[in-house]
């Protein structure tokens, strides 16, 4: 693996390989759309119009992108520490629980400028706590983080169903959801869409993750651990504590999906609001090469696909919104598992250097 990576020039490594990977994914998507019986270029045109054709659709694109930024950053940050956090889904769910419970408890007493930071903090703490347990199990008990985070997704889902059906359900309500948040627990919308102030939080997270990873000692130690745990250990890094730190930060980032979804849009705790964003974060992080700028751009693309895909499914009933899920899967496959696929081709095409 290392020999084939070394021999490509940096520009090919940073730009060409990822672009070819994503292009391959979209090529397969095009073939699937063709098989369904729709002209892929026609579909693409409708999708672009649906994603950015009006201020409202741009708003929705940015709103979806906000979720993808949170989960994408969560996966990317854990990747830098050499950890594969598949638990974004559960962490987002529990983060939303924290956010919602804080609001349900205090929205009658606190003004918005106190309530909002408190709820955001609660989302981060709950998300972090849900990620901390698998982190602790990996660091101290040796259980593999991939398996435990998967299991924690299911446990989170069962827990939330139980809480919403039995505990948090609004009195007199038939649907398992909490009462509506008071005005101080609702984030102001930014346009005629679901876009809300959470996007500012998302941008802030991008900057903060970048500063943390590349401009702090902890961030350096975290990346060192991801690169070479032995070397990091030798350099004096406490690997166990660093694992905990990485997982807590990752879980907190995923937990912010709850802020965007519950405080920004639903204004109550509802079932299944993470809706696959946690898994999509893997695609976002892989496509964005685990860099905050890349994650933000990939999140924008996936946001546009989500919104454009929804509009497209109105025009073309044969294409459902789940096409976006197919794209996510293919991006993870080609940008992640098959990332080395195009290397030999590029090696053949590039002129050899002494």
């Amino acid at each position, binding site marked *: 693996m290392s020999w084939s990576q070394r021999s490509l020039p940096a520009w090919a490594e940073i730009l060409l390989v990822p672009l070819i990977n994503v292009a391959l994914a979209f090529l397969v998507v095009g073939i699937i759309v063709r098989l*369904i019986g729709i002209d892929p270029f026609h579909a693409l045109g409708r999708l672009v119009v649906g994603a950015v054709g009006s201020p409202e659709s741009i708003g929705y694109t940015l709103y979806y992108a906000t979720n993808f930024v949170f989960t994408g950053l969560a996966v990317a940050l854990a990747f830098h520490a050499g950890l*594969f956090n598949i638990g974004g889904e559960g962490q987002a769910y529990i983060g939303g629980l924290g956010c919602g419970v804080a609001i349900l408890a205090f929205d009658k007493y606190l003004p918005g400028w106190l309530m909002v930071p408190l709820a955001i903090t609660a989302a981060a703490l709950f998300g972090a706590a849900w990620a901390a347990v698998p982190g602790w199990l990996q660091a101290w*008990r040796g259980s593999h983080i991939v398996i435990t985070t998967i299991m924690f997704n299911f446990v989170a889902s069962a827990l939330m169903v139980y809480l919403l059906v039995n505990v948090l359900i609004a009195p007199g309500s038939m649907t398992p959801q909490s009462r509506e948040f008071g005005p101080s627990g609702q984030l102001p919308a930014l346009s005629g869409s679901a876009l809300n102030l959470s996007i500012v939080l998302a941008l802030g997270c991008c900057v903060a993750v970048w500063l943390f990873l590349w401009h702090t000692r902890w961030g350096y130690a975290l990346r060192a651990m991801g690169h070479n745990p032995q070397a990091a250990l030798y350099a004096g890094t406490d690997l166990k504590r660093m694992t905990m730190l990485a997982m807590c930060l990752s879980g907190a980032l995923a937990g912010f999906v709850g802020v965007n979804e519950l405080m920004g849009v639903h204004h109550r705790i509802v079932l299944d609001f993470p809706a696959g964003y946690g898994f999509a974060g893997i695609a976002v992080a892989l496509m964005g090469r685990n860099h905050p700028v890349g994650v933000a751009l990939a999140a924008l693309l996936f946001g546009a696909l989500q919104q454009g895909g929804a509009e497209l499914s109105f025009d073309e009933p044969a294409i459902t919104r789940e096409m976006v*899920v*197919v794209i996510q899967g*293919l991006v*993870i496959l080609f940008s992640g*598992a*098959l990332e080395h696929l195009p290397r030999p081709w590029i090696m053949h095409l590039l002129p050899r250097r002494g």
Partner: protein
Amino acid sequence: MDDSAAIVFLTAAATLRTATPLILCAMGGLFSERSGIVDVGLEGKMLIAAFFAAVAAATTGSAWWGLAAAIASAEFLALVHGFACITHRGNQVVSGVALNILAAGLTVVLGNAWFHQGGQTPALAAGQRLMPLLSPRAGDNVLVYVALASVPLTWWMISRTRFGLRLRAVGEMPLAVDAAGISVAWLRYRAVLLCGFFAGLAGAYLSIAQNAGFSRDMTAGQGFIALAAIIFGKWRPFPAFGACLIFGLFDAVAIRLQGVTLPGLGEVPVQLIQALPYLLTIFLLAGFIGRAVAPKAIGLPYEKEH
């Protein structure tokens, strides 16, 4: 039959019914994992197999074509997994996750495009399904017996044949296998294909035996429960089979216990019972109940020295 005997019989039958796809999936996963290839993608394979089984059964009118389509589609995903993880030495977990997401999306997209029922496939008539052989109440279709037979078969293949010996060796120390002049890649491909075969049977069971058609996300985490059963059984066929039965029993009991107050415990939340397989696996992995030791080379791509 008196009442308690009937309850025992029905609970046992229900347990076996819910355990069947878990057993098939777990036996498939065992081959893959023992060869050193992590399979997080059991869920996706089972889902796509369930979908194509229902599609083929509905269009051809034959459950056997459904079974064939299920195996073929699961094998296709297995080959993609092998191509990514064995040939291109990609990250096995990433590949598995990708296939799960791909299957979740593709089944709905294709189902909607072909049948216009929001991702569902048409309801299957009795002749298009695998029907119970002896007792309709027990629901003992042919795949239940296949699942029961698959356990000793898997055990025999893994621990009593030359193929199994090499398979275990390649999961523990691929270098030694390579040095003995045996192809690591070909061994692992065979393991992955066996995994696809069993996952295909499990998927077919869901859509053309247990139910009469495919509905979106119908696997509902059973692939992951099968994975949990493999870990719970410490990567050995009979203990994994036992874990599948226990997890199947949880599921059968969860439905029965809905709203029932137990003496001394009060009302047990159904969600707790549903989460038990996952919780138990977490406890096991953490070393609180025994120790689960994975094959040594699991998850590591094998690279020949150059």
